């Protein structure tokens, strides 16, 4: 019992200190990753620019034109029109709606998914209905949501909610159903049973799947915000794109697209960071 040296030898892999890459080595690694990630976007920009010059089109602005538009959209001082320096307000409105709908979807989807996954009766009760609703494209709900919620932001939030809800729910159910049955047995024989198991076993064991669902759901949320804001909303990135279309201002449309792309990317990064933090126990999810 007191021979600890033997015990340590049982786990040489766990004991060997990981050869810590120096600060400089890490920096080089990071720069390399960023550089690799930038190659394709830069190439796309160059192709875009060349194509615009080559065809001489006036329908699509050049990257430089879009860059000027973006600057004006963000800080103003160039065109001085209705869109100058209006980025913060549009951005803020869209973010509110995206996260409003997304958080509602998570708040309902995760608990419901945990219960459906764990309770056969509830699964038999709800699964057919959910399977029926799921294939309906969320955009098809637009007319109805406008009747339910009127012209305005609430219809957009509803669409975002619907779009995020199903991936979150289904991934949660899948996560719960794929929990190793042994873990429930282990919890039970240790005296953790019934409702206690939801918090102590079901939720943490399903967390990897839940995070997959959240990331998918957040992606859909950013897709649907544009659809949701295309009707009867004065502010929001979707509304800006729609206005750009109406006014034939393609530079405005592309500006809106790029900003949504970047925001969606950053919001996914935040979820990924949260996921890495909460799943630090899981070797295959710690990306």
């Amino acid at each position, binding site marked *: *019992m*007191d*021979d*600890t040296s*033997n*015990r*340590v030898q*049982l*786990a040489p*892999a*766990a004991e060997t200190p990981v050869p810590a890459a120096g600060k400089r080595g890490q920096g080089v690694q990071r720069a390399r990753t960023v550089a690799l990630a930038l190659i394709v976007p830069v190439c796309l920009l160059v192709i875009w620019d060349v194509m615009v010059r080559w065809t001489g089109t006036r329908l699509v602005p050049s990257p430089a034109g879009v860059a000027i538009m973006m600057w004006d959209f963000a800080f103003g001082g160039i065109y001085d029109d209705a869109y100058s320096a209006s980025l913060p307000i549009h951005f803020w409105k869209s973010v509110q709606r995206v996260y409003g709908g997304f958080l509602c979807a998570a708040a309902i989807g995760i608990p419901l998914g945990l219960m459906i996954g764990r309770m056969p009766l509830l699964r038999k009760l709800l699964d057919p209905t959910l399977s029926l609703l799921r294939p309906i494209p969320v955009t098809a709900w637009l007319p109805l949501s406008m009747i339910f919620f009127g012209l305005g932001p609430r219809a957009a939030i509803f669409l975002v909610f619907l779009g995020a809800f199903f991936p979150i729910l289904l991934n949660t159910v899948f996560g719960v159903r794929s929990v*190793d049955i*042994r*873990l429930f*047995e*282990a*919890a*039970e*024989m*240790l*005296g*953790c*049973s019934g409702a*206690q198991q939801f918090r*102590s*076993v079901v939720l*943490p*064991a399903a*967390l990897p799947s839940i995070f997959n669902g959240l990331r998918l759901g957040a992606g859909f949320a950013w897709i649907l915000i544009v659809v949701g804001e295309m009707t009867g909303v004065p502010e929001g990135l979707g509304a800006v794109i729609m206005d750009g279309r109406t006014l034939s201002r393609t530079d405005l449309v592309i500006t809106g697209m790029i900003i949504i792309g970047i925001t969606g990317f950053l919001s996914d990064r935040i979820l990924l960071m949260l996921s890495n933090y909460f799943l*630090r*126990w*899981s*070797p295959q999810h710690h990306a």
Partner: protein
Amino acid sequence: MLDRPTTIAPDILEVSAVRKIYQASNGPVEALRGVNLTIRKGEFVCLLGASGCGKSTLLRIVAGFEKATEGSVTMYGFPVDKPGPDRGMVFQDYALFPWLTVRDNIGFGPKHRRVASKVVDELTDKFMAMVGLTAFADRYPHQLSGGMKQRVAIARVLSNDTDVLLMDEPFGALDALTRSKLQEELVEIWRTTGLTVIFVTHSVEEAVMLADRVIVMSAGPGRIDCEIEVDLPRPRDVASPEFNVLRREVTQKLTSHIAGSRGVAADS
């Protein structure tokens, strides 16, 4: 004196006339028939048998994970109908909670039985030290070797103040060196804590090494074949003549019915 007197100890667990029938897709399968077994307090019992003899099923019925089709299991005279902290299980595949550290895995039982958090910490520290994992308190299961994981699984049950330790081929997935080390440690833990152990194995050597009493089971349907008392002093020496006499005897008992009914050699 390394051995504890067990013969005068009271009965703790009683299995009477247990029968288990599974409904398989091709009809009912009788996994156990007419199993009677009495376990005395503080006893170390091994259930030994080839695959398919129902030894794991019997253990799972005692644990409360499965219900007997007929017959009953009682502990201290009360019927066993569901899993409980009084019968702690150690699984072959560890079944640790991968999202909890070594410390939190060991503290899981007491914490969920609403033990004060200070006491949980004391219990955790005590049993972490007992299995020699204090230095690994903040590791997650995926950072541990198989032997260390099984130590955590044992400590997790011990910290929960279990009466009977149920072990389902716990060392089956470990390499030979780690296995014999853990066997030694298990006997030491059993000796110092006064636990009752029911240990399922298919290895004759392991059974003779560990047990006070070896229950030999046979298949088709699963039943108890015979019992063999092992009164060798501990620590036991695998190389000693006495050990080998007993090992041969048990192997013979185990293989006789297999050879008779199926014509295959037992895996020891």
